[in-house]
Each structure stands twice: as C-alpha cells, then as structure tokens.
C-alpha cells in the first residue's frame, strides 16, 4: 500500500544537508528501521519544505508504521504542492479511511481506482449496493484476500438486513414479512415463534414458492419428521420441478423409514438435478435398504467421485464397506474402511 519515491534525482536539487537525511532515511527504510526513516524524512521536509517527494515519503513511512492519523497532514501537504501525485492521492485515501475519516477519504479513493478500498469505505458509509459491486471487482483481482471477503460478506448481510427491515416495516402483513420474521426466529432457535410466523405467511399466501420448504426445514430442526414431510410434500406439489424440495422430501421419508417412497422421490430429485451429492448419498442409502445393492454401490461411488474429501465422501466409504461386507467382499470392505478412516482421522501415523 505504501510506496517510497526514489529521491535520488532530487538529491541534486536540494541542499546537501537535506540530501544526506534523504539518503539516511532510505537506508533506514532498507534495513527495516521505519522509526528512524520517519525521523530522517521529517528532517528532509524541514530542510526542503517545498519538496513534495519529502512529504510523500514521510506519509508513506507513517502509514507503514500504522500511524494513519499522523500520515494525513504530510500527504495533504504533498498534494497541495503537486496536485498530480497519484501516489499521494491513493495514500491519503488509505490514511483517511484507516483513521476513520471515511467521508473525506471517499473522493481520494474514487480518484485512484482501488476498488477494494473504495468498497470498504462504501460499506462503512452504508452504500451497500455500490460496495458489493466494487468489492466483487476487487475480488476478481485478489480472490483470496480475507479483508475483501469479510467486507463483501458484511455488505451483503447488511444489504439483506436493510431489505428485510424495509419489507417488515412497509408490508408487515405480507407473507414475505412473516416469512422473514420466521427465518429470524429459526436462527435464534425460537421455533414456536417461527412456526407461528410461518403459519401466518402460509395463511397470507399459501402458494408462495419456498415457504413450505423453509417450514419443512424448521420442522426438521424440532425434529418433527411427520410435519416436515407434509411441508416438503406441499412444496413439491407447488414446485414439481424443484430438485431441492424433492431431495428434502425423499430424505425425510428415508428418516421416517418409508424406504420405497424415499427411493422413488430421491430418484426423481436426481433426475431433476443430476449429481447433487446429498441426493446421491441418500438415494444410495434408500437403494441399499430396498435391496438394490448395485444401485447403492453406483451412487455412493459417484458421491466419492464428486467430492473426494468431504464428510459425505467419508460416509460413502463407510457405507460401501458395510455393503461389501454383506456381500462377503472382505478386501473391498477393508479398502473402503481404510479410506473412511483416512478421511475421518487423517492418514495413519508412520510412528
């Protein structure tokens, strides 16, 4: 973020004293002694008060030393001496943002084109849609930057909250407002309150897509499998093409021990959205319980192909081991157990 401008050329234009301090400052910087660099750069600005580069370097050193508020004055001075210094503009934006002067930072950040810093400032100012756009752009260049990821998550969450707040205050009796409240209650583990809100939502709009799916998921938390089944069934009737609700219905049927029905529904879910690992795993379990060992083996193997290192893959290895044991295939069972153990507990120790 900070940049030290080469002062070499400037040595010729300043007094020998100022040049000496500039050299000392650069040497201190080079050996990592930022404190000393700051002292030396400050002397350069005292001995050459009209030299913009002196102020920029002082500001940069202060930023590097995390003295953001202290960096603001020298960077402003640099810009007053030379309006075209892009580096000073950029660093001033960072310094102001880091010191909490977000409003003042914004025009400087807008000028220098750093989408990430601009996005962060916009999050702080509550300008979430613009922030999300800028942070996404920044993440395309730096996909693994934790700071950018954090602020993108925060901006998305706050934007979402803002929308729900508007929904609940402007349309308090709408199905969507009740659904939003219900989801908050679910997150707080207040399930009776959530159930009340969901029921109000259903009353307002019984055909609202996703509502019965969410209710079913809430009943799974209770857990009340019969009610969950009923809601998932309602959702699949409303949205027969939705793979998620079909999978949920199949999975709850399986948990209830309605194995044949579960196998049929999970087969339907798999057709609607092929290669969804959760569906394949549950379908394989249902197939195994209905005696379709070949189908179960195929689907558990497919889960492992799709996600080799996940919990679901470990569970699939475990299930395959059980299947092979029943078939008397001891070597295959041992191999699958070994894979399961390796995923669950890591590879065996060499000690």
């Amino acid at each position, binding site marked *: 973020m900070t940049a030290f401008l080469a002062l070499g050329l400037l040595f010729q234009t300043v007094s020998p004293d100022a040049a000496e301090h500039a050299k000392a400052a650069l040497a201190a910087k080079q050996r990592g002694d930022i404190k000393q660099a700051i002292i030396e750069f400050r002397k350069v600005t005292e001995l050459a008060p009209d030299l913009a580069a002196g102020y920029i370097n002082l500001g940069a050193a202060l930023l590097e030393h995390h003295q953001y508020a202290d960096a603001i004055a020298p960077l402003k001075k640099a810009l007053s001496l030379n309006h075209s210094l892009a580096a000073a503009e950029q660093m001033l934006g960072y310094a102001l943002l880091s010191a909490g002067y977000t409003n003042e930072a914004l025009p400087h950040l807008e000028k220098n084109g750093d989408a990430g810093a601009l996005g962060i400032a916009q999050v702080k100012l509550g300008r979430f849609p613009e922030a999300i756009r800028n942070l996404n752009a920044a993440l395309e260049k730096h996909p693994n930057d934790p700071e950018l990821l954090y602020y993108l998550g925060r901006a998305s969450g706050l934007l979402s909250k803002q929308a729900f707040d508007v929904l609940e205050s402007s349309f308090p009796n709408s199905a969507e407002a009740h659904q939003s409240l219900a989801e908050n209650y679910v997150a707080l583990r207040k399930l009776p309150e959530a159930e009340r809100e969901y029921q109000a939502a259903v009353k307002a709009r019984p055909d609202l897509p996703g509502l019965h799916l969410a209710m079913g998921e809430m009943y799974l938390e*209770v857990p009340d499998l019969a009610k969950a089944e009923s809601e998932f069934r309602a959702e699949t009737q409303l949205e027969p093409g939705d793979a998620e609700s079909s999978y949920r219905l199949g999975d709850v049927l399986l948990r209830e021990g309605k194995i044949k029905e579960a196998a049929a529904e999970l087969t339907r879910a798999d057709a609607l959205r092929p290669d969804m690992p959760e569906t394949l795993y549950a379908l394989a379990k249902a197939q195994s319980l209905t005696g379709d060992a070949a189908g179960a083996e195929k689907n558990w193997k497919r889960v492992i192909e799709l996600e080799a290192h996940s919990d679901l893959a470990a569970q699939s290895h475990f299930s395959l081991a059980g299947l092979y044991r029943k078939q008397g295939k001891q070597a295959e069972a041992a191999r699958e157990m070994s894979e399961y153990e390796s995923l669950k507990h890591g590879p065996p120790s060499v000690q």
Partner: protein
Amino acid sequence: MGGGVAMLDYNNDGLLDLFFVNGGHIGGTKFDSEFDRDDPKYWNRLYRQNRDGSFTDVTAEAGLRHAGNGNYGMGVAVADYDNDGYPDLYVTSFGHNVLYHNNGNGTFTDVTAKAGVEAGGWSASAGFFDFDNDGKLDLFVTRYMQWSLATSKPCARQTYCPPGEFPAVTNILYRNRGDGTFEDVSLKSGIASKKGRSLGVAFSDYDGDGFADIFVANDGMEQFLWHNNGNGTFSERALDAGVALSDDGNPFAGMGVDFRDYDNDGRPDIIVTNLAKQTYALYHNDGNGRFSYRSLESGLGALTAGSSGWGVGLVDFDNDGWKDLFVAQGHVMDNVEQIDASLHYREQPLLALNHGGRFVKADSGESAALAGRGAAFGDLNNNGLMDVVIGVLNDKPVILKNRNANGAHWLGIRLQGVRSNRDGLGSIVIVNGQRQDAQTAGSYQSANDKRIHFGLGDKSSADIEIRWPSGVTQRLKNIAAGQYLDVKEAAQ
C-alpha cells in the same frame, strides 16, 4: 448421570422389591465437594414390596444405610454371585463401588474389600454374567472417563463439557473365583486393551458359539462389542460387526443398551439410546457375526430423532409375542432449553409397540415430562404383565404398572442353575419360537427382574427349550400359559 434402579426379590417372598441408587451431597462450591452420604436423603434405598402392592423402606434394617462418603452413586447390578439362592447387590459410584452380600435374613453385608471389587474412578453400569461358563457369575463394570473435581472444567454456555474433553478409561472385568473373591482379569482378558467413555452394558451370545459376549455403550465415540473367544479372552469387533457407529459412520452418545431379539429371528439384536438428533441405534443381528443398522426401517428415526434416551428395554408389554420398546428419556443438560428450545431436559418416557419389527408409538401412561435415567423392567404384581420403574433425577421415581387388558397369554420362567450359575444367567430360552436371554443387566445403570417373560398371544400353551451356559439343553412340551414356571437345570 446417575439414577440406577433394580428390581429384585431380595427376601425370596415372591414379590419384587426395589432398590434405588442415590447421588451424594454436592457442596456449596461444586469443586470441593466430598459427596457426603450421611444425611438420609443421600442414602441408597431398598423398598420391600408388601402383599398389598405397597412398599416399605427397609434400607436401614437391611444394613444398606452406609453408602460410603465420597461415593457419588450411579448404578446397580443384581445377581446371586455366590449361588446361595439370594440376590446380591453391586452398587457403582464415582468413588468406590460396593458389593453387598445378601445374608438371606433380610440384611446385607458390605463385602467389597474381601471380594476385591471396589474398582475406583468413575464407574457407571455393571452387570453379572458368566463369561467362562464355570457356573460362577463374573462381574463387568463400565467406567465413564478420567475425571475428578480437581481437574473438572467449565465449557462455554454449557452445563457440562462434552466427554471428549476428558481422557477415556478402561472398563473392568472381574472373574469370580468362587470363594467370595474376584480376580481383576481386565488385562489378561483383553478388556483393558481399549479405553472408552462407557455407560451402558448388556450381555448376549450374539454369534451362538456358547459364550456370552459384551456390548458396551460409549459416549461420543465408537461403541464396543467384545466377542468372547471362549478361552478367557475377548476381542473388540464392533467396527467389523457393524455396531460401532451410526449408518453414516458417525459416533454418537451411547448411553443405555439392550441386547435382545426384537424381530423373533432367533438372534439377539442391539438397541443403544443416545442424544437428541442422533436417533437411537437399532442393530439387527444378520448372523455370521454381522449386524445391520435398522433404525430407519424400524421406525425409530421418526420416534426418537428428537429425544435423549437412557434406560431402555425390549420387553413384550402387550404379550403379543413381540418385544416392545420402552425408553426413559430427558436431555443430559439441565439448561438445554436455553441453548436450543427444541431440546428438553425433561421428556415423557417412550413406549413403542412392536408391530412385526416396526415400532409404533403408544401411550406409556406417564404424561409428565421427567428427567428419566435408569429404568428397570419386571412383573411387580405377578400378573404376567411387565411393569417399569424409572429413576428420575432430583425427583421421585416413577412406577408404571402395566394395565394391558387384551387378554393375551403369557408365560414366566424362573431358572435355577445347577451346573450353571444358580440364576441361570446367560441361558437362552426359546418359547414358541421366541428367544429370550436370561440376564439382569442392560438398560442404563439398572438391573431387571431375573425372571424370563414371554408374551404368547393367543397361544394357551408353550413349548420351551432352555440352553444353559453349562451346555445342557432342556426341552419342555405343552406347558400351560399364565404361570411362573420354575425350571431347575437338568443333570444332562
């Protein structure tokens, strides 16, 4: 964690009596408590059943008032370990366990020191069985974890830390020498080769090789199935047998266990109770030493996914010839509702009737929610209907009298071993094709009526086959229903 209950006829008057294990005084600052047991409210309690079905507290006159300071009570095992015809008591504790010998005159004597079975640490369940078929009952003790007041620690937002926060420990196997003393054979039998966080225990010969095997319910880790090798040693085979984990390969909080044939195929199955959102694990014995996870097909997924279970029994409550399911329930944490409103510290017990291998919820008769722990099963009023007694934390116990009125026939059998142990524990009894294993252990920290009960449905008589641990097989034909039949082991 305590709450053990026993049903036993300690004075051989033909009526089942009740024994309850109590905890101990916990001091003002939890962590310097000495678990004082002097105050009568911390005594274990023995209640003698009177002819009119009421009970009289006979703790003091039976010599059971001294539970021992420092022994925070957990569970109880019952059997006639010295073959003198009177049931003895073994009480487990955090601290030291106590063996009470039944003197045959209404009193008990603490013989722990002589017998050498005090164990130590944190014991949970215990059970008597004859692992070497020598006619003398041996003793298995589960231990929970390596924990002490000094090393205890709090965990954020929770009353208790999960068991994984504390080191696992070994269980103990004591071999009965037959002279009133026991030998700790945990090491040489192989039992000490694996450490667990063990709670429930039950015995059955799952592979039909003539030797009793051991299932141990472990909390938050793999379960143990100790196969009896028939030569004084055991091999742990839970993973290979398919009973170590859930069907998804996940460990669960194993607490109570029963080891009986629920689907009348002649092979003992295993049910393990655990915490809410885990589903009680039902393992069907497929033969050849293998089991299949059957919680889903049996209906337990829907019945138990939201419950936490402890004491458990596969018992034929309606005498239709199919063993039903009873579970004492309640979450382990007394503040669980604050953490997750969908979970409950107090729950109603579960009664589920067995309809050809699928369990369907029924009315247990107890409408109140309880912090149920131990549960013992037996016929309190000798009417051929199995009753239940539940140990409840910080509350009175609950007795559930069976009011079934479907008129189905039944048969009870009292075994008397001669070459085998006198209680006949470990015998396999087949009546009209149904199998029962003679054992008092199982459930959670509790001991059941030693008599063997069969529901006969509409059959008014029964053919009986008894496979004694000695190897003797005895057959009785056309025995009338509606009675408790005494069967003494035949000479050959």
